[in-house]
């Protein structure tokens, strides 16, 4: 078959997917930028170019800063911890411990639950008076908490839920990587007299680095994308203590109908994700991707 025809076939096959991708990913990205410089379309005052007005309002909006800070805390709290726990889980399941299939199920189950369901389960866990956590703390004289209703603990609570939900998912990637480490290495290390911890520190951990990078990027993206539980558990409250970027975009866009401001916030979110992508490509070793 000649090149021209192959090319034609190629384009024909890619076209449906490419059209949809353009329609719901690429054009919206460009439009988010464009609309962030436009005023919100209203019946009496149609949308027009307003320069940096939306960004000015954004900078002046304390709730935006609150949401951004919260989101960074949420990311910095959930990403390293879920990575560490995921790695630990994978090591446990990979070492032939008693009951490892039970353990694998226990660790992985939260992954397949809807975040909304997870949120409902955890609300009850955190509930004042009769929630499970209170039941444990009360006898110790530490009762009387309202974990989701307090400024100090609400963000922590939603972070814990994210860690619980995601660690088991990330475990899978480590498990796959661990299974590819040659058993010869373990034998060699045993002959050299290296202990288990030394082996982990000097052999396993470095070999898992590519996986860690991959998981970290995914965990970071999720930290800015997965906000479902916040809707159910706190609704962003109390006092915006658990509001994060995407949640705030939803609020401003679909509750206050300020599309201009929400677009500016979307641009900020896109920039954050862009930074994550840049970090993945430049700051860290390029060879490690996709094995």
């Amino acid at each position, binding site marked *: 078959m000649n090149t021209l025809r192959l090319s034609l076939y190629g384009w024909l096959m*890619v076209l449906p997917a490419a059209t*949809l991708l353009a329609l719901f990913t*690429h054009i919206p990205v460009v439009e988010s930028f464009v609309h962030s410089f436009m005023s919100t379309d209203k019946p009496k005052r149609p949308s027009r170019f307003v320069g940096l007005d939306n960004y000015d309002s954004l900078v002046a909006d304390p709730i935006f800063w609150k949401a951004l800070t919260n989101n960074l805390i949420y990311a910095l709290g959930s990403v390293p911890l879920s990575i560490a*726990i995921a790695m630990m889980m994978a090591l446990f399941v990979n070492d032939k411990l008693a009951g490892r299939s039970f353990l694998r199920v226990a660790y992985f189950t939260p992954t397949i639950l809807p975040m909304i*369901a997870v949120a409902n389960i955890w609300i009850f866990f955190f509930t004042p008076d009769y929630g499970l956590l209170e039941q444990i703390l009360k006898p110790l004289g530490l009762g009387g908490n309202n974990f989701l209703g307090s400024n100090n603990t609400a963000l922590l609570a939603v972070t814990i839920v994210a860690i619980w939900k995601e660690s088991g998912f990330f475990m899978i990637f480590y498990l796959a990587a661990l299974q590819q480490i040659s058993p010869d290495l373990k034998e060699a290390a045993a002959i050299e007299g290296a202990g288990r911890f030394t082996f982990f520190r000097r052999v396993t951990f470095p070999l898992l680095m590519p996986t860690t990078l991959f998981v970290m990027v995914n965990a970071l993206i999720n930290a800015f994308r997965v906000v*479902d539980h916040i809707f159910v558990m706190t609704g962003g409250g109390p006092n915006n203590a658990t509001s994060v970027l995407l949640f705030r975009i*939803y609020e401003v866009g679909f509750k206050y109908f300020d599309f201009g401001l929400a677009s500016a916030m*979307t641009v900020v979110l896109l920039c954050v994700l862009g930074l994550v992508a840049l970090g993945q490509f430049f700051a860290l070793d390029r060879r490690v991707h996709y094995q």
Partner: protein
Amino acid sequence: MKALRMLGRGVEQGAAWLLGLLWLLPLVFAVWTAFHSPAYMAHFSFTAPLTLENFKNAWQAAPFARYFLNTTLLVIGILIAQFTLCTLAAFAFARLPFVGSRLLFALVLIQLMVAPDILLLENYSAIKMLGLMDTLPGIALPYLASAFGIFLLRQTFLTIPKDLEEAARIEGCGPFGTLWRVYVPIARPIYVAYGLVSVSWHWNNFLWPLIITNSVETRPLTVGLAVFASSDQGIDWSVITAATLMTSAPLLIGFLLFQRQFVQSFVRAGIR
């Protein structure tokens, strides 16, 4: 030395189990609440009678049957469309040297970073413009061309020896025939893996359907559950928990029955 090693192993075993139990605790608690009358909520006793009353109440209190139907249709529709679109695109990227394919592939990969959920404002406008508000296709459309699926299948197709393709061509197969007769059958495990990941993802998706739907006829389970749980009608927590477990049940039971395949599939989908 040996004793020390034994001790280390014991500690690891203990830690592993502790973590496992800790991880299951919220779920066990939910199961307890759902299967007991509200009187036994957070009141643990081995003699507490089991009941299905909460599930019955939940089922009657909201149109869960309809929500189940909506989610099922949605998930199946997305899966079929994703398989079709991603297979075609992946094959073209893997095997057909067309002009601009490298650039186009790079553009596709952008979606791995920027999921449609992030762009909810613009996608909302797009769906509105297409007149698909409050419809199942409206929920599905932004996810049909999935970069993840295209990438996964392309990587798989690249590992398939070209000799097989030659053989198919000699037999008189065109590109579509080759794809259908050679590539798709060989990639079957990857389709299973991708299918499981996709189904669990879309079964659980919430934010986008929340924005797009506003009627019982289109609402998927997740949104239905959230609406149900937040309606301040003094619904018992036991009933809400029962509803929660109910909406998660198909995936949960599927996972428990086929846990090896599930985990394997997620691994397969993950390491590429």
